[in-house]
């Protein structure tokens, strides 16, 4: 799992079967300082989250396992909303969106 900031929403009405009702979000993975780590990506939201939220997500096959229907073409899913991420003396959850 990695830390990420939700930076947008992706709307796709026509989609693969099994993905109905699954929200897709545009997320930016973060390193331990809260800086962007790698490229942003689209993740299925297994929890209720929205732009600006600090979340953790899982990539690979486990992304599909986090969805309501597990045999679906998903390779990244948001698995939790992060209330607090205390790294060093900094709480990443308290930082403003970069």
């Amino acid at each position, binding site marked *: 799992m990695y830390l990420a900031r939700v930076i947008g929403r992706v709307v796709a009405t026509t989609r693969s079967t099994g993905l109905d009702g699954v929200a897709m979000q545009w997320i930016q993975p973060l390193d*331990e300082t809260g800086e962007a780590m790698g490229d942003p990506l689209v993740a299925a939201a297994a929890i209720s989250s929205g732009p600006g939220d600090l979340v953790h997500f899982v990539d690979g096959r486990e992304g599909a*396992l986090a969805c309501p229907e597990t045999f679906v073409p998903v390779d990244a899913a948001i698995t939790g909303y992060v209330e607090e991420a205390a*790294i060093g003396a900094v709480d990443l959850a308290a930082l403003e969106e970069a």
Partner: protein
Amino acid sequence: MFLAEVVGTVVSTVQIRILDGEKLLALRPVTPDGRPTGKTRIGIDRVQAGVGDRVLVIDEGSSARQILGDPKGAVKTVIVGLVDYVEVRGKLAYDHTERTS
């Protein structure tokens, strides 16, 4: 599996059910002598690790599901060991007892 240093704690209450009650830690992959390598990630702590500890991490789904006992769990990164020492080519690259004394 790889070595990592625990660099922080992560608190999450709204999350997928399998993570409820699990402790999450921020992990920075490191070489045996402590240089950062690879992407910082979040892992489930199953060994009572804490910030500053050097740990052994597995980042693979089937193993993680086996440890958590759920064949359909969306989990991948689990701390599976607390490292006492690492020896590389006959030399001690990391020694936990030395670091804490």
